[in-house]
């Protein structure tokens, strides 16, 4: 049985302009020790999906349906008190912005101790020892003295380490990381990613990593979901996704990455803007930006179905397999040239 199983999750927000369908039927499951990558641009619903699972959306004006099964219990609609037991304990989350996610008026030690004592009946001394242990595990130098420092005394990368320490402090089974490295420099990003990989080996947690960076996904994920306009458009094993991408949006994402080979003067850009979720386009939501658009795309919503070759590779597109093979091969050849030149 999967550790966490999400079925047909939908999150709608009531706004003055109408209903925003921020997540519209997302399903996935994650196993122990597995890393799941969710990729998409801003507004594609990747963060909202995870906030919904954690019960962190505002109550007012939010409609949620579907289920998120945690050891057989549905987290959606669970009582706050029960949810608090799980949140930060069994499932924890690392937020995007390390600059604003820590409380600036308390020392990091106090914040870590609080996280422990909320879920464990232990003395302050024990909780502090545990905090220190975690700070050391995430590679904070001179942890014994730094534990009494305030967040502003830490750099961005160090704060993100503190956030990771806080998320891991109760040995969670699932760790949700929402753009954990987006606010950081490349060298710090490399430090944090290798830290997350190492901690996963040590603690055996499942990780759900949300990012817009295909490079990060390629480095760390086992399975990948590509989201566009509140839907999953493609889902596959990381190697399959990068070697045989099946959806025009995925091709677009791969093509718009700047690459090395000097022959390619222009990036393959995806024309237009992501659609408004107030009034998503009829049929396939990607059709107004899709270079391969057909008549059927404008009227019929494609289902998320397995590809002919691989039952575990799902995609949501009307295009025939032959065209896809051809186009995917082109994109892969380009990205491969880039990667090898690097």
């Amino acid at each position, binding site marked *: 049985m999967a550790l966490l199983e999400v079925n047909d999750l939908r999150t709608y927000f009531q706004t003055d302009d109408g209903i925003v369908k921020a997540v519209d039927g997302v399903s996935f499951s994650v196993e122990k020790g597995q890393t799941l990558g969710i990729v998409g*641009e*801003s507004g594609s619903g990747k963060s909202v999906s995870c906030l919904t699972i954690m019960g962190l959306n505002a109550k007012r004006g939010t409609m949620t349906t579907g289920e998120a099964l945690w050891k057989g219990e549905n987290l959606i609609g669970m009582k706050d008190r029960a949810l608090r037991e799980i949140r930060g304990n069994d499932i924890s989350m690392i937020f995007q912005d390390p600059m604003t996610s820590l409380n600036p008026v308390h020392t990091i030690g106090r914040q870590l101790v609080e996280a422990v004592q909320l879920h464990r009946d232990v003395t302050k001394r024990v909780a502090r020892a545990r905090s220190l242990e975690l700070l050391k595990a995430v590679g904070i*130098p*001179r942890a014994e003295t730094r534990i009494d420092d305030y967040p502003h*005394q*830490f*750099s*961005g*990368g*160090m704060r993100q380490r503190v956030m990771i320490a806080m998320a891991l402090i109760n040995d969670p089974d699932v760790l949700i990381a929402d753009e954990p490295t987006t606010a950081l*420099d*490349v*060298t*710090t*990003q*490399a*430090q944090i*990613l*290798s830290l997350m990989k190492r901690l996963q080996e040590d603690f055996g947690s499942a990780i759900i990593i949300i990012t*817009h*960076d*295909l*490079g*990060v996904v*390629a*480095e760390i994920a086992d399975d990948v979901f590509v989201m566009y306009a509140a839907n999953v458009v493609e889902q596959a094993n*990381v*190697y399959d996704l*990068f070697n045989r991408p099946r959806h025009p949006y995925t091709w*677009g*994402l*791969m*093509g*718009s*990455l*700047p*690459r*090395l080979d*000097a022959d390619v*003067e*222009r*990036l*393959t*850009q*995806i*024309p237009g*803007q*992501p659609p408004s979720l107030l009034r998503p386009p009829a049929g396939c939501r990607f059709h107004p930006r899709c270079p391969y658009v057909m008549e059927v795309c404008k009227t019929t919503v494609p289902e998320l179905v397995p590809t002919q070759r691989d039952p575990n590779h799902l995609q949501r597109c009307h295009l025939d397999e032959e065209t896809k093979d051809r186009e995917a091969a082109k994109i892969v050849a380009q*990205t*491969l040239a*880039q*990667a*090898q*030149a*690097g």
Partner: protein
Amino acid sequence: METNGRSGNELLVVEDVKKYFPITRGIIFQKEIAAVKAVDGVSFSINPGETLGIVGESGCGKSTLARCIMKLLETSGGRITFEGRDITKLSRAAMRPIRREMTMIFQDPYASLNPRKRVGFIIGEPLEVHGLGTAAEIKTRVQELLDVVGLNPEHYNRFPHEFSGGQRQRIGVARALAVNPKLIVCDEPVSALDVSVQAQILNLLKDLQDDFGLTYVFIAHDLNVVRHISDRVMVMYLGKVAEVASRDTLYKEPKHPYTGALLSAVPIANPELGRQREPIVLEGDVPSPVNPPSACNFHPRCPRFVEGHCDVEDPPLYSFGNGHVAACHYALERWPMSADEMRRPGSKTAEKALPA
């Protein structure tokens, strides 16, 4: 020290530019107690039609350098020559005609446009300031510019909030183009944008360069973006130049260990290749520019650190031919290298640079 031979027709020459921000104590009698050395002796030059990429981590002084070039900040030392004319000491009034020749695109398309002004006014304001044409002429020019950057000329009367992030950055580009400048300083123009939109803006910048013969100083922290758009690349670390080379040379044969570490830290969008290699993970953080490490400022994090040399003697910019220079006593012999190969026998990484 001259970094490369001057051909005489460079558009912009920057020589030993410094920018120190004083840290003062006291209210009435302010005493300078220290200085943040944001830019500390940077030299480079740009030829017309060229794109110079400047990369570095946050806090390395790349944005401060951009502001010094634009004379938005007074330099603390050094010389900036634009089209053969020393602009370092020019007054605001004397600077004004030169401001037509060099413009800037800012990082945040949400903060760099006045939310209370219409797009037509925002783009037309530079023309008005420089007295280029009547109101009617300016309007025609603005509509032409909107068309050039791929926006609908009919959106002339809209407000910035009616546009998406990518469209706003196009407005920023149109504003920079309005006065037909020779040089555009782009300060992280795409870092706030989604990948697909980022590609649109990068393509636009390239097209404009071809059409109008523009020269760019392109500042970014994303090495892939810089690689895509630049002819030459300069790597900065803690206010100093670490390495300058042509684009292909820098990415294929980096000489400075910091450049190597940066390159190896960029995630590769290919799981097979990405997972084979072993990134060089640098220890610690970038030290504070208030109290930078002695001599080579990279030495506390450098895998090739040699005690008694790197922390004593400031490395000059050694030349490797074809304008390729790197500030390192122990330049990399080849590339790629793993972290272990990079480490010199007998050398150990200095004690970690810890934030105070």
